[in-house]
């Protein structure tokens, strides 16, 4: 199985704005490996370092030490992002553009133009059920519609790796179902999904393998069923609470690897 995403001893520090204050360690020696074709759940409480990890993978933040690779290419090189799609936690798109103009803009960034771009844009609007609203300005879209445009833009380049940062956050049940359907469809096409979420029930349903991080370090990694067994619990939620130390357990705090090992 080929490795799609890899981080090696990733360390990120943010300088403090306060005088003589130590830098805040956002990530400390994080090692991650995501294999081709899997749906990988990336879990952790608020402030654990999930978004920072994604920001490093996308080249927004430069690590203090360590390295990160997408398809074997250093993430600091823009070409590393040629085969990925990214959906941010909130929908942040140019409100003065129509949905079609937005997709056409991103298609151009990926070097797509002409009939090929038209065909792909038509297919994506069909996929996210926005064919009727494609020529409306984005500022007139509801939150659910904006999230679906977000998914469409994340898929514009037919990516091999989809990075989703809490994709169902704030969506109604119908919107969540739609997002889940699309994730499943992407998986069926053999693509890889890197999925950060607080919706543990959803992660349990969708993901092949999960990682739980806390305070910038990896705390547990493995298949959901293996983790549930390892921690002698009944659900991923209970595993999560144990791992982050919410419940007093002997194993909390120590990195635990179960089931599918790193490639």
């Amino acid at each position, binding site marked *: 199985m080929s490795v799609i995403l890899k981080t090696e001893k990733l360390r990120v520090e943010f300088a403090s704005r306060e005088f003589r204050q130590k830098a805040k360690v956002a990530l400390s020696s994080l090692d991650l490996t995501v294999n081709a074709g899997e749906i990988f759940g990336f879990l952790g409480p608020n402030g654990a370092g999930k978004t920072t990890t994604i920001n490093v993978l996308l080249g*927004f933040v430069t690590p203090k030490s360590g390295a990160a690779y997408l398809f074997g290419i250093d993430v600091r090189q*823009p070409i590393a992002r040629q085969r990925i799609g990214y959906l941010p936690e909130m929908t942040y798109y140019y409100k003065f553009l129509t949905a079609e103009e937005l997709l056409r803009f991103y298609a151009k960034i990926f070097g797509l133009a002409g009939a090929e771009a038209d065909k792909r844009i038509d297919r994506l609007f069909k996929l996210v059920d926005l064919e009727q609203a494609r020529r409306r300005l984005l500022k007139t879209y509801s939150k659910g519609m904006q999230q679906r445009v977000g998914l469409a833009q994340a898929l514009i380049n037919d990516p091999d790796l989809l990075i989703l940062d809490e994709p169902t956050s704030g969506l109604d049940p119908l919107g969540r179902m739609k997002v889940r359907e699309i994730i499943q469809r992407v998986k069926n096409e053999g693509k890889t999904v890197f999925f950060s979420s607080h919706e543990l029930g959803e992660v349990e349903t969708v993901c092949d393998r999960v990682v739980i991080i806390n305070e910038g370090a990896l705390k547990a990694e493995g298949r959901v069923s293996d983790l549930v067994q390892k921690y002698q619990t009944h659900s991923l939620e209970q595993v999560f609470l144990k791992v982050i130390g919410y419940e007093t357990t002997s194993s909390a705090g120590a990195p635990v690897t179960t089931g599918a090992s790193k490639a």
Partner: protein
Amino acid sequence: MNKIFAIGKVVLLEMYRRKDFYVLFIVTALITAVMGSVTFFKDEQIVRYLKAICLFLIWASSLFIAIGATARQIPAERESRTIFPLMAKPVSRAQVLLGKFLGCWLACGAALVIFYAFFGCVAAAREHQWPLANYFQAWSLHWAMLGIVVAMTLFGSLVLTAVSSNITITFIATIAILLVGRHLHQVALTMSEPSAIMITSLYYVIPHLELFDMRDLIVHDWPLIPWGIWFIALVYAAAYSALLLLLSWLVFRRKVLQ
């Protein structure tokens, strides 16, 4: 190059769909039209003063457009977080900067075409002549000068946190260069060291925006400047714009986005 043009096109679309620039244009056009239609004291020579005032208005408006539009670009992308989906694509920070520069600079060029065309029509209605080559030289040098201003504002938007402080500082710096830039070395002669050397250095470092001011050429119907000089001025503007863009890139390339 396609990526740079795509980003530039989005900048142009944003400006086209914003209403504030239309207000600026309508106000300038109205004042120009009113000035052009008035004859004070039945003095035909007064038309020179009217032209000077109208061209001053065009210069002021163009600076407002260039600085106002450019100062918002990167901070607005960061504030509205639209920079994240964009930078998650295979686009480098240098391409984003160049795209923003290109979009703002082209928008300034388009605004200048409208301003100068309107001014030309009003002036022609009074003087019954079309000095097209003069207008072309004035427009092209004005546009080249705005290239430096746009690059300078882009640099300011990466160094200064607040948009308002960037607009204020860039506007003051631009006006200061236009008004006193050419006199700095003479001022230095009256000073003692080390102030003199500092002011002299400043004279050689700052971009001399006043070199691009061709308003007198139109107001007094002076002959064209030699095309060789015109070309050197364009190269001078290109060099300063490139230098400022390079500085912007050096700041932007390591900037943490989050």
